[in-house]
């Protein structure tokens, strides 16, 4: 994406940019991370097609161990754990695909607005201070205490609210560091408007840091979904979600230790996968 939008005054710079991306995407950590996330998310999206049983299909066989019929065993109602884990991934697909982009765009816009005027900057900065004073999970509790109530909507709103100040601060810092650069002054001299300079010149140069943050935020989103559902203010049973599954399985570890295995592997895989992607992009794009 940035390859297209980055202002490339000449072909040499464009080629350097492309090779930087190609390198970042070829690092082992990026490849591993992308592979893990791709496999898990594809499995989640295809859940209705590939899940061996329905989400709520009960059987008389509760707390069964791993077997050919039930690869990850069954839960307290005899439901197939593998099927529920696959459906649970869909909640994370939703959160990462909806909440992170929305939060990123809102935060970036607010961060750019900081560059518009000193008073605007001060106000937005103070708003970010207040937002950051609520740590992610506390913010989740606050959101679920409003009319939104516990549930998927609360998770999405929380993830958006958590990401806004993260992207806002990052963009603001980038704007300030770029502003004194020669190319910005050159653009000003040529007579480019303030908004044009922000969007066409400064934002593309801040893009690398924002993209690394997106990867980190995706990992954070999976973490928040899990935490909120685990604590009971997110997705609530009987709807399947990785956090809720983990919580229920924790109550039955004595009866069926294998119950927790699926959610554990998938949550860890997703968080680790997104972290690895962030590491790779960070190494390839930001370290000079």
């Amino acid at each position: 994406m940035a390859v297209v939008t980055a202002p490339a005054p000449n072909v040499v710079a464009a080629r350097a940019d492309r090779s930087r991306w190609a390198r970042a995407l070829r690092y082992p950590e990026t490849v591993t991370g992308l592979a893990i996330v791709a496999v898990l998310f594809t499995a989640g999206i295809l859940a209705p097609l590939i899940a061996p049983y329905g989400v709520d299909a009960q059987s008389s066989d509760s707390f069964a161990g791993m077997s050919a019929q039930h690869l990850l065993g069954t839960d307290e109602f005899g439901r197939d754990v593998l099927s529920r884990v696959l459906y649970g991934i869909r909640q994370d697909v939703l959160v990462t695909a909806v909440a992170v982009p929305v939060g990123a765009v809102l935060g970036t816009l607010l961060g750019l607005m900081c560059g518009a005027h000193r008073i605007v900057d001060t106000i937005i900065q103070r708003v970010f201070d207040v937002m950051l004073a609520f740590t992610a999970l506390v913010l989740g509790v606050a959101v679920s205490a409003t009319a939104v109530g516990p549930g998927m909507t609360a998770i999405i709103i929380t993830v958006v609210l958590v990401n806004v100040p993260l992207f806002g601060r990052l963009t603001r810092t980038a704007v300030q560091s770029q502003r004194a650069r020669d190319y910005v002054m050159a653009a000003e001299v040529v007579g480019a408007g303030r908004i044009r300079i922000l969007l066409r010149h400064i934002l593309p140069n801040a893009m690398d840091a924002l993209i690394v943050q997106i990867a980190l935020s995706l990992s954070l989103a999976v973490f928040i979904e899990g935490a909120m559902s685990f604590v009971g203010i997110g997705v609530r049973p009987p709807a399947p979600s990785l956090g809720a599954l983990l919580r229920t399985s924790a109550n039955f570890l004595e009866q069926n230790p294998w119950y927790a295995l699926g959610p554990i592997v998938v949550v860890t895989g997703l968080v680790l996968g997104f972290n690895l992607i962030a590491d790779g992009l960070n190494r390839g794009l930001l370290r000079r």
Partner: protein
Amino acid sequence: MLRYALRRCPSALLVLVVASVVVFTVPRLAEGDAADVLAGPDATATTREAVRHDLGLDRSPVVQYVLWARGLLTGDLGTSYILKRPAAEAIGTALGQTITLTVAALLLAMALGGAAGIALGVVRRRSATRVVGGLVSVAFALPPYVSGVLLVLLFAVSIKLLPAVGYVPLHEDPDIAVQYLIMPALCLSLPFAAVLARFLAASVRQVMDEDFVRTGVAKGLSSRRLVFAHVVPNALPPVLTILGIQVGQLLGGAIVVEAIFGWHGIGDLLVNSVLTRDYVLVQDLLLFTVVVFVVVQTLTDLAHAAVDPRVRLEA
């Protein structure tokens, strides 16, 4: 130093005041209010109005806010409608467990993260740093609700070494209390230890390249003395800021950890008061977490300024 402190405080106070307004508004954005909960679903409109009047909820929001804020400043946190006792009392009881948990986790994180960070920063042997670095990455990627369940599976279910859930106060029976404390504290400390290790390692590596370290090597200092007397003290200040942010987030982590191990601390109280719509407690507890965050943050900044004159002179 005092000048820096005085300059730093107004913005912290502003955050607290705005946050208190936000926190006050949150329960009022819910469907129905405490009077509905208290009067029950079958109550008539007149009963509900009477209850609402008793609780003072029929007054204007501004008056309610002022009364609440004045109460907070005089130590009166209001009364929990659901628990039927002063909110301060409920919070006080829960606080003991949370403090035990967070302090233990913090100490553990500093010990584990400190050791791993220094090792990663100093040791040059690749095989050794790979192992420690790998462990740090895993600890970093394990959310507490995953590591908690893993710990229970390992130490409570398969080798029945530690109790899975419960809490015993340290002053009642220290030996038993520690058994109940180990897993929750470890679970809460792991991500913090990992973050600490990463930043400390980076900081140590940077200091290792400084000229004074080379001088130390040249004049024949033992490597132990070099690392612990010269490198680590100089590597600590930047890590301090990170530690402050992390400590501010311990309460968030405590919400999850208390849920796993069946503790009844602040996090558990907060979640329960949301689920039972105990609005006074929700309000008080949300503000409490913000206060802790802001105070820790401000203290960290002050500590940073105290050890690093550049910070206090620059700002």
